Structure formats: structure tokens, C-alpha cells
């Protein structure tokens, strides 16, 4: 029972990380029809920026270092994403395949740069004491980092829903995901929302990068790309353009991966997630929240 609870909650933690990456991806795809391969680069660059700042603040307590690192990661992620949209995506507004390709190039170049500058070995992340401890939940000892990640994802989920349901930009994004042309025909310049959506996605990805570093205790250049593929799967299963869909799918994927990797062998869980994607797409090409996809 305690193993079950442990797997359940850590699976939720993994799902939380996927959600943070997938939510932004889903909105970017839903609104702009851009398959953003650079999302993994946002994740990685933000994580390394945060880590560098934490190191630079070596004299402070690990708590201060960590908070500064997270704040920097969020900002760097957002700025990097916004710049990407303005400099690379916007000039290619009519060429959807070109937009995807340019994000591929950016991802390749950025990760290579990070690897060159910091090396491909994982770097340790200094964590405050309480994060290295565990809390007893239903008899199982859950690492506090997992709980932290879950709480963070819930907060971001709430913020995103608030943004989408209660602000004008959110209204524009929701409508734009459904029918971009009609939004334009209502006199609204949807392009202005693009940079904002990219920035939001970048901030979430940056936070994810830092939290993943917290979760695993280290940061490394390859993790962004690895998690990105699973995040893509989450986006497709959850329905392109749907934040709630991404949340639900992230939980499913995280749990599936966690349980099967434990009860099967390492890798079986990952494999099954891929199979799940194939099955879902065969049954329902639009994913779960089919209504949002056009």
C-alpha cells in the first residue's frame, strides 16, 4: 500500500513537470499552429541560468539561492521565448513548416551551446534542507521535492485558468484557438497575443526546468529534449490547445510511466506512453479535448 501511495504521488510529481511544459506547448500550438521544438531549449537555458545564479550567490543560504534560481529561470524562460517569437517566428508567419523548422534549428544550436559551455555532465543543484527530507503521506515517505512540484503545478494551472477565463487576452486566446480568422474579422490583431502566449509558455518551461532540476537534484543539457518528447505526447493526448486537457493527460502519462517503470523494467513505462499515444491517435486523432482542435 505504501509503495502504491509512493508511486501514485511521485507519478503525480512527474505529471506536474510534464504539465508545466505541455501547457505552454498546447497553447502555442492551439493558437499559432506552431510545433515549438525550441520549448526544450527554453527549459534548458532557463535551468542553467537559474543554476548559475544560485552558484553566484554561493554565500547565501540554499533557500535564498533556490528562490533566486527559480525567479531567474522563470524570467529567462519568458524573455527567451518572447525573443524567439519576435525574431524567428513572426517573420515566417505564412510558412508553418518553416516555423517548425526554425524552432528545430534553435533547439539544436542552443542545446549544443549549453553543452559546450557547461559540459554534458549533470551539475548538482544546491537544495535547502527541508527539500531533501521526506514527508509521511498515507504512510508513505514522499520526498518533499515531489510535493513541491505538485503544488507549483497546481498554482500555475490555477493562474493559467484565471488568465484564460478572466482576462481579455485570455478570451482572445481561447477564441483564437478555435477560429483565428474570425477573431481577426472582429477587428482583433491576434498577432499581439502570439508573443504573450510564447512568453507564458517560456515562463512555464523555465519553471519546469528549475523544478526538474530540483526533482532530480541535478541539471543536464539533455533533459529538456527528453522531457519535450513526452510533453508533446501529453499535448496530443490532452487535445491541442486545451490546458485542462494537458493537465489530465499529464497526470495519466506521469502515472503510467511511474507505475510501469517500477513494476515492469526501466523503460517499459516510457514505451507504454508511446503506445498510449498511438492508441489515442488511432481512436481519436484530435486527442481527448477534441473540440479545441480545428
Amino acid at each position, binding site marked *: 500500500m505504501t509503495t502504491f501511495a509512493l508511486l501514485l504521488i511521485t507519478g503525480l510529481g512527474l505529471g506536474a513537470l510534464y504539465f508545466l511544459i505541455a501547457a505552454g506547448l498546447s497553447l502555442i500550438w492551439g493558437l499559432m499552429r506552431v510545433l515549438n521544438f525550441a520549448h526544450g531549449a527554453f527549459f534548458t537555458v532557463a535551468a542553467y541560468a537559474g543554476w548559475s545564479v544560485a552558484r553566484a550567490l554561493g554565500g547565501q543560504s540554499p533557500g535564498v539561492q533556490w528562490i533566486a534560481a527559480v525567479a531567474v529561470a522563470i524570467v529567462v524562460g519568458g524573455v527567451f521565448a518572447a525573443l524567439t517569437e519576435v525574431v524567428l517566428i513572426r517573420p515566417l508567419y505564412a510558412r508553418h513548416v518553416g516555423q517548425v523548422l526554425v524552432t528545430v534549428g534553435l533547439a539544436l544550436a542552443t542545446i549544443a551551446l549549453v553543452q559546450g559551455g557547461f559540459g554534458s555532465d549533470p551539475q548538482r543543484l544546491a537544495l535547502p534542507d527541508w527539500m531533501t527530507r521526506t514527508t509521511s503521506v498515507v504512510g508513505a515517505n514522499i520526498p518533499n521535492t515531489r510535493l513541491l512540484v505538485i503544488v507549483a503545478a497546481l498554482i500555475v494551472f490555477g493562474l493559467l485558468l484565471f488568465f484564460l477565463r478572466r482576462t481579455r487576452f485570455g*478570451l*482572445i486566446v*481561447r*477564441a483564437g484557438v*478555435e*477560429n483565428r*480568422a*474570425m*477573431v*481577426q*474579422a*472582429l*477587428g*482583433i*490583431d*491576434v498577432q499581439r497575443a502570439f508573443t504573450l502566449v510564447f512568453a507564458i509558455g517560456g515562463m512555464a518551461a523555465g519553471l519546469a526546468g528549475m523544478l526538474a532540476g530540483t526533482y532530480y537534484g541535478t541539471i543536464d543539457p539533455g533533459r529538456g529534449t527528453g522531457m519535450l518528447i513526452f510533453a508533446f505526447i501529453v499535448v496530443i493526448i490532452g487535445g491541442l490547445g486545451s490546458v485542462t486537457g494537458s493537465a489530465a493527460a499529464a497526470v495519466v502519462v506521469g502515472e503510467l510511466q511511474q507505475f510501469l517503470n517500477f513494476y515492469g523494467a526501466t523503460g517499459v513505462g516510457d514505451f507504454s506512453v508511446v503506445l498510449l499515444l498511438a492508441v489515442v491517435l488511432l481512436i481519436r486523432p484530435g486527442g481527448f479535448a477534441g*473540440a*479545441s482542435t480545428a
Partner: protein
Amino acid sequence: MNGAGPLLAVRELDVYLAESHVLQGVSFDVRRGGITGLLGRNGVGKTTALRGILGLVPRTGSVLLGGDETINLPTHEIVRRGVAYVPEDRDVFAGLTVAENLRLAERAPAPRYELVYELFPELKQRAAQKGGTLSGGQQQMVALARALLNPDDRILLIDEPTKGLAPLVVRHVVDALRRAADVATILLVEQNLSVAHALVREVIVLDQGRVSFTGEVDELMGDAALARKHLGLAAAGSH
């Protein structure tokens, strides 16, 4: 601002969709005030003409709105200059509520909710209902309401508003359009010829992507041979 000339002047409008030359050098004027009809058989390019004016499809030529050239402007810019659009498929946002659909359409500081709710009281009742759950007639009301919301709009481009609606709803829409004509110029695409005849004064008829007739509606409908020639057999005998 050209007070005396036509509100909308379309000159040599050319639109290619895939490989087909849908509009071939279409030219017409829409006079300020009242309802002008854009008629023609199925597939002649009426919807494309509206979309061309709005820049929703790539086009060449000239479209003057109140004397100002708009051919090089993006869609949202054209709309902001006072053009409202009611598309053939209504394009009501399914995931948004009725109130949100309307709110999204607000462009001016004092949106005309009073007028809109007076014409379509049902919309006030269904304010929290999701667009996707509305009936065809209710969606049409939302689409029309959106177009009537902004007081500064000079011209409304309306595409087949009575399509697929029950006769009672059609009557409601016709009344609404009459009221709308009091506050804005309307360019109305209609397949339903009795509706067209009841509402419009001047008509432009398209045939195979070109303008085949312009003039008064009575002139067209009153002459059975003329009506048949431009509008097809269904036209003859519809008054």
C-alpha cells in the same frame, strides 16, 4: 471623407482560390445607407466577394472604404475602420459563452447592448450559455448582435443570414435587419430571393465571378426573363 460618393467602392477585385479564378475583375459600388443586395446563383463568388473585401482571402484590385484604399490592409485593420462581418457559417465561438462572444466583439467605448438586447432578448437570457450548445437560429442572433454592437461601424457585410432557419426565425432576422439598416449601411448576400426582395433596394448580381447586373431590385425581379437570366429558374415568379 467623401460624403457624396459611394461608401464602398470595389474596383477590379481579383481572387484566386487554389487554382480557380473565383472573382474576375469584379467592380461595384455600395451606396451609403439602406441595404444593397449581392445576389447570384450558388457558387458564383458572393461569399468570396465579401471575404475579399475583408482581406480574408488574398486579393488584388482596389477596395475603397469611404474613399480610403484598404486593399493593402490586414483584416483586423479593415474591420477597425468600421466594417462588421456576419459570416455564412456564423462562426460563433463554441467554447465561449454568449456574453463572451459579444464581449469579444466590442471595439468601441460604448457598445450598443441596449439595441442588441432589444432586438434579441433571448441573448440576454442565454448570456451564460456556451456558443456550441445554441441552435442555428440562436447562433445567427449572436452573429448579428456582434455586428451591431459597435456604433462606429459604417457598413455591415452580411452573408446569407436566413440560411437553414425556420420561417419564424427568418421573420425575426428580417425585422432585425430592417432595424439595423437604420443605423448602418448593409451589403447583404442572400440566396432567399423573397427575403432579398423584401429588404434590399439596389442589387448587384454576380455570375461566374463577374458582375452581370446592377440596378434596382424591382427592375430585376419585375422582369421574369431578366430574373431567370441572372438568377436562374428559381427567380422567375418570386415576388
